[in-house]
Structures are given as C-alpha cells and as structure tokens.
C-alpha cells in the first residue's frame, strides 16, 4: 500500500509536466487516425512511434505510447459505425448495431455512445490495473492449456447467438472460419497445412488481412454498384452530444458487465480485445430486455462491444507490468518500449521504477479522458463521409484496404490474400451469410486446436485424465457451465420461435 501511494504521488508529479500532457494529446490524435483507418491496428501504431520516444524521458515516452493504445482501440469504432468496416479486429462487433444505427440516421448517437462506452470501460480497467494488479495477475496464471481450450469453445458458442437470423447460414460461416484457422503450421508438431507454399501463411491466415478483405471489399462493391441502401444523414456530431453520451448511464449494469468481461479477457494472456467484444456483445444480447433489437441498431450492442474492448487495455497491462508477460500483441510492443527505456517489466518494476510506472498508469487515465473530445471532434468530420459520392468513397476504401494489408508486413502477398478473402466476403454478403461467425471461428479455431493439443500433451495423451482435470478445476467448471448455459438459452429461443 505504501509503495502504491508514494508511487501515485511521485508519478502524479511527473505527469503534471505540460510536455507530457501535450504528448498525450498528440498520441491521442495519432491513435485515433491509426485506429479509424481499416488495416492500421493499435499494434502498428504503437510500434511505429516507439523509436520516436527514444529522445524523451521514459515517463513522457510511455505516456505517448499509452495514449496511442487507448485511443486507437476506441477509434476503430468510427469506421465500423460509419462505413460498416471495422477499424481494428476489436471493433468487429460494433458494426453489427453501429452500422444499422447509421442507416437509421443515428450515426451521431452511435459515435457518442461508443465514445462514452470506450471511455468508461478504459477508465475502470485502468482503475483495476492501479489497485488490483497483483491479485489479478495471480488469477491470470491459473489459466492453463485446458482452460484456454474451454474458453475457446465457450467463444464458439457465441456463434449461435450471432446467427439467430439464420442459424444454418451462421453455422456454415462459423465452420468455415474454423476451417480457415487450420491454415498454417500446427502449433505443436510444426506440420504445415494448406499453405500452398506461401510462407506468409505459415503462421496462419493473418486476421487483420482477412478482416480488411471480408468487410472492405464487399462494401466497396455495393457502394459502386449503387446497391447500397440509402443512409440517412444524422444531425452532426457535437450538438446535444453530451446528452447522447450520458445515455450510457441508463445501462449501468450493462456497462459494468462489459467492463468486467473486458478486464478478465484482457488479463488472460493470448486472448484479445476481439474476443472480449464478442463475448460482451453476446452477454448483453442475452441479458437485454430488448434482445430483439440486436443486429438492427441496438444502442446496447454498441455500448457492450466498445466498453469491453477498451476495458481490455487495462486488463492486458496487468500481466505485462506485474509478470512481464504481455496479455496481447499491443502490450507486447509496449513492454518492448518499456525495456528500451531501461525499465525491467516484472515483479521488481513497481519497486525499482516506482515513479515512472505510476506516472504511466496515471497517464492512461488522462488518455481515456482526452480521446473523448478529440474523438468527437474528428468524428464530426468523419460523419460527413457517408455523404461522399460513391465514385470517391469506393476507390478511397479500396486504396486504404490495399495499403492497410500491405503495411502489416510490407509485402504484396498479404494484398493478394486480402483480395481473395474479399471475393469470399462479397459472395457471403450477396448470399446474406453473416460474416462475424467466420471472424470468430478464425480467431478461436487456432486457439482451440493448439490449446487442446497442448492440454493433451500435458496429460501424456490420456483423454480420461484430461476430462478428470477439467472436472476438478474450478475455473474449467465455471467455463463449462457458462458454455452449457449459453447453448441452452440458444436452443430454448429457437424452440420458442418455432412455437
């Protein structure tokens, strides 16, 4: 406790430097641009600016990187809501209700809700990071291969709730995603499968590339073919925005649940913000009184998805700072930045570099406040995007898609992969097959496969001991329970619908 309070005091002093505050602002602007452009991810944004921080003091450099992390995670919602194209994988769920809201002329409201939800989720998760980091990190360590596997299976059960409109098509899409996740090296044996000699596929189909293809290309085709359903312009963002943002507090329980889901998924190393937003979305849908509205422009869907993915930020930094084990790709890069600044992540960090660590954590609070006005300001102009003539918007989105997929590894191969997936996405859209189950299958498939193989290896191939292990671990039992509950609710709903 003493370390905590002296750290907060010393860190707070470091943070009060006007230059640091300016850097947070600059990082936020940069992060929002990176996040809202499809194809540029938070990871890339942070990695790009690591060298820029060399000349700064550690406190300043880290504040800048933290600001990018917070704001880019938030900003992916903007393109999801306005263009039906997620800015980062974490915003895939946001478009399910965000874009229908735009179609109804409520884009301003959707952006206000996502901004407020992101800020609340981010803020609370940093709170958890500040006060609860050590016990949360111990909790993260309790997750072994078997728990990860069960978690992936639980995630797959969300597919059912994503495809209520047409169960068969949803399941086909989910299975296809699971199948695509097999592409690449087997995580344990290293056997190479379905790569057709393309080295870029050895580590699996790159998620971001797949996402760009799946959403950008079909959108462009429908924009250019003039088949895009008419979109009503909303009142410009800004007027009455405060009231719209306050609307999230009508859903206090929802906010809290989504935040907790985000934090928990965040602290589990290897999960990620896309899983958090899928799970939170599903949870919101099942617990909502207006679950029929989901997928048709439900504000609750936008809030759940955006609150959860920003709550991952604080969660993912828990194991990164306390154990030196990054929770996801972005925190791995942040950790690298920390080390280049001479800080050693891990148990000694909070003692040896007390002031800097706490100034970093406190700066994240500031970042979560700063992206609200900056984001709304930028969104004010972005909202006009939907009025842009198709002949301009279409090529622009294609350009962004190509550059985004090229920029990931600076290679053309990814661009071709993106185009191929784009064709698939177009066909799916044309036949009204939901694409989200495919994304979920792709994210979770390799996790489920690798972790099952690992769990089996740990018990030396005995299925009986694996089952025994699952039935004796409390965490495993809870996850199994949640999965069964989710499946039962889905089945019940289908039965009721049939009468």
């Amino acid at each position, binding site marked *: 406790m003493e370390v905590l309070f002296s750290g907060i005091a010393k860190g707070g002093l470091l943070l009060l430097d006007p230059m640091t505050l300016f850097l947070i602002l600059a990082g936020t602007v940069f992060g929002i641009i990176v996040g809202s*452009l499809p194809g540029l991810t938070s*990871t890339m944004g*942070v*990695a*790009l600016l*690591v*060298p820029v921080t060399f000349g700064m003091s550690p406190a300043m450099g880290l504040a800048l990187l933290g600001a990018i992390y917070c704001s880019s995670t938030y900003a992916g919602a903007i393109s999801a809501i306005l263009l039906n194209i997620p800015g980062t994988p974490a915003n895939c769920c946001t478009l399910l209700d965000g874009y229908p809201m735009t179609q109804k002329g409520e884009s301003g409201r959707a952006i206000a809700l996502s901004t407020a939800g992101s800020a609340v989720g981010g803020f609370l998760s940093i709170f958890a990071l500040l006060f609860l980091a050590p016990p949360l990190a111990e909790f993260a*360590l*309790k*997750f*072994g*291969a078997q728990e990860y596997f069960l978690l992936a299976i639980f995630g797959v059960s969300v597919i059912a709730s994503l495809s209520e409109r047409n169960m068969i098509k949803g399941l086909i899409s989910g299975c296809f995603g699971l199948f695509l996740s097999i592409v690449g*090296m087997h*995580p*344990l*044996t*290293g056997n*190479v499968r379905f790569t057709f000699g393309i*080295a*870029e596929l*050895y580590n699996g189909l790159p998620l971001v590339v797949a996402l760009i293809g799946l959403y950008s290309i079909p959108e462009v085709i429908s924009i250019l073919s003039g088949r895009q359903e008419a979109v009503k312009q909303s009142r410009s963002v800004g007027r009455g925005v405060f009231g719209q943002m306050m609307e999230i507090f009508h859903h206090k329980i929802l906010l809290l649940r989504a935040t907790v889901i985000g934090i928990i998924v965040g602290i589990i*190393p*290897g999960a990620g913000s896309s899983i958090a937003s899928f799970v939170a979305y599903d949870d919101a849908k099942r617990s909502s009184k207006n679950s029929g509205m989901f997928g048709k422009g439900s504000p609750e869907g936008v809030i759940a998805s955006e609150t959860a993915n920003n709550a991952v930020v604080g969660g993912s930094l828990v*194991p990164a700072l306390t*154990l*030196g*084990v*990054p929770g996801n*790709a972005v925190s*791995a*890069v*942040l*950790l*690298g930045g920390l*080390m*280049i600044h*001479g800080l*050693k*992540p*891990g*148990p*000694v960090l909070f003692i040896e570099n007390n002031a800097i660590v706490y100034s970093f954590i406190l700066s994240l609070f500031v970042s979560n406040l700063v992206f609200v006005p900056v984001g709304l300001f930028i969104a004010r*102009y972005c909202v*006009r*995007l939907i009025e*842009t003539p198709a002949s301009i918007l279409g090529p*622009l989105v294609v*350009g*962004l898609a190509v*550059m985004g997929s*090229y*920029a990931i*590894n*600076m*290679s053309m191969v990814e661009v071709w992969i993106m185009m191929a997936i784009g064709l698939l996405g177009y066909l799916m859209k044309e036949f009204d097959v939901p694409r989200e189950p495919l994304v979920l299958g792709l994210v979770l498939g390799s996790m489920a496969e*690798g972790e099952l193989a*690992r769990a089996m*290896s*740990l018990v*030396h191939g005995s299925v009986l001991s694996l089952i025994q292990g699952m039935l004796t671990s409390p965490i495993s039992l809870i996850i199994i329970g949640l999965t069964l509950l989710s499946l039962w609710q889905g089945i019940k709903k289908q039965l009721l619908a049939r009468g």
Partner: protein
Amino acid sequence: MNGQKRILGTLLALVAFVASFAAVAPSMASAADYPTKPVVAIVPFSPGGGNDILLRLVAKYITPALGEALIVENKPGAGGQVGWTALSKARADGYTIGATSLPSMILIKSLREDVPFSLDDFQYICNFQVDPIIWVVNADSQFGTARDIVDFAKANPKKLNVAGDGPQSNVQLQHLVAAKLLEISSNFVSYSGSGPALTALLGKQVDMAATTLSSAIPHIEGGRLRPLVLFYSAKMEAIADTPTAKEAFGIEIPSIGMALRGVAAPKDVKAEQIATLEKAFKAVAESPEFLEQAESLGLAIQFMGSQESTALVTETAALVEQYKSLFEEK
C-alpha cells in the same frame, strides 16, 4: 460543396500520411560517401521480441557512429522465413540490412522444404548478443538441482513435462540434444514463444521450462523462478551461481540452441559498406551507455566481427546438421 472539398482534402491528407510509412523505398546509392540516408534494418519477428528489442536498443545509440539513423522495420512471419527471404532479395545498396538469429535461421533452412533463401545469400556484418538456454523451475519446485531432473526423468520416462518455445525452435533443439546426451526422455510441450512457456511454468502447468536466459531473468530476479543449469561453456553474470552443463552433469553438451543475434546484409553489398556498418555496430557495442542498459535488461553483449560471424554460421550449420534428426525421433 465547400464542406465536401474540405472533407476530400482531409481524406487525401490521411491517405498520403498512411502512404508515407507504407513505403520506405530504397534509392540509388553512391559508394563514395555512405551512408547518406537512414539505413533500414529488417527484423523478421514481431515488435517486442528479443531481436526486436536488441535492434531497437542499438538503433537508439548508433546514429553518432553511423552518421545516419537506423530504422527498424518488422517483417514477421513463418518464424523468420518471410523476413530473411525479403532480406536475401533486398536491393544490395547498403541501405537495407537485417537482423540474424542463429541457429533459428539455419533450422528453418534445414528443416523446411522450399525455403527461398540460402545461408550464402547474406554477408554477415557482425554478431552482437549471445542468449544461452537454461533450464528453470519454480522457486518452490521439488527439483533442487539439474541432477534431480535427470534422476526423475530416468525413473519416469516421458513423464517430465517441459515447456518451451517451439516447435522446431532453438530452445527445443537444445533440449533435445541435452536429453539425448543425458540419456533421458521427456515430454517437450511447445508454446508460442518463451513468454507463454514461462507463464505456463509460473502457473504450475508444467514441471520445468527450457528458455533463453534473457526471457527468464526478470522472473529469476523477482524470485519466482530458479535456474538449474546453463547450457553454455562460460558463466553468465546475471546468474553467476548457476552451474554450467559441464559442472552439473560432468559431460560436455554443445550450446547448440544458444541464440546468437547479429546483423547481415544481402550478399552483393560492397565490402567498404559492410566495413562501415561493422565499425558503427562495434562502436555501439563498446559504448558504456549502451552496455549499461543492455546489462540491466539481461542482454549479454559479445561482439564478433564480420569474419568471425561468418565462421560461426558455418560452424553452427554443421552442428545443426549433426543433430537435426532428433526432431523426428520424439
């Protein structure tokens, strides 16, 4: 319409902004004064990994010696294959170099089919860091010494669960070679990197882990993990009390899995440019500020020049050839 123009202008500016980092195009070089613009270093791994941190740290200090900045460009994929292929095909104007990691580079070449680069496609500029493999256990583990591990593994064949980066990694190679020479059999469980492997150990999912020293140091210093044996002939300062393989087992075990991190250039780069680069990297390796920071991060810096590094590649390749069949036995 004015509003629309403004939006269009903003969008075009954004596109230009993105394009500016998507394209780091190399251009013509003159050998007379080199370098006249920043040098790009391809790191074939994701940001935040061992090679990435090392090169970024070097980049922080190299500008005075090189006269230009060193820009790290991550090109991850297929365990390094994508990045090294790109380096082998890069324009040989001296403005694109890349990080090397032995024996990973050699393992990829010798275990996979259709690898488009060859070890002769590179000129090795220098070797910078050594990162030996260690065995670690939890601080409260029942295994007190490396001998205890060997005794347990002998009494319970295949039962010892060992976490490590893999599959087909330098860590697994080291573990397999050690197991072969110690005549034990264990169950090596691959994790996607040393970080996740150590997390599994900390969470008590496995009995022990094989890992690079640098990844384990924070946990060893934090008192949660205990190193048992070091697979290297020399003692390492960070874990001065840990016995070497020779001391622990009384037999020589080659330090085949030790990660050797350096830089290389495409093979047609001019000799004088290589010399310039080698000199600049050497200056960094000798800079007290750099050394101090590297030491605090647990990176063991050992500078080897171009000639020595090239010899090292040949040596390591021969060792890998000798032991690579172990991957198939299991």
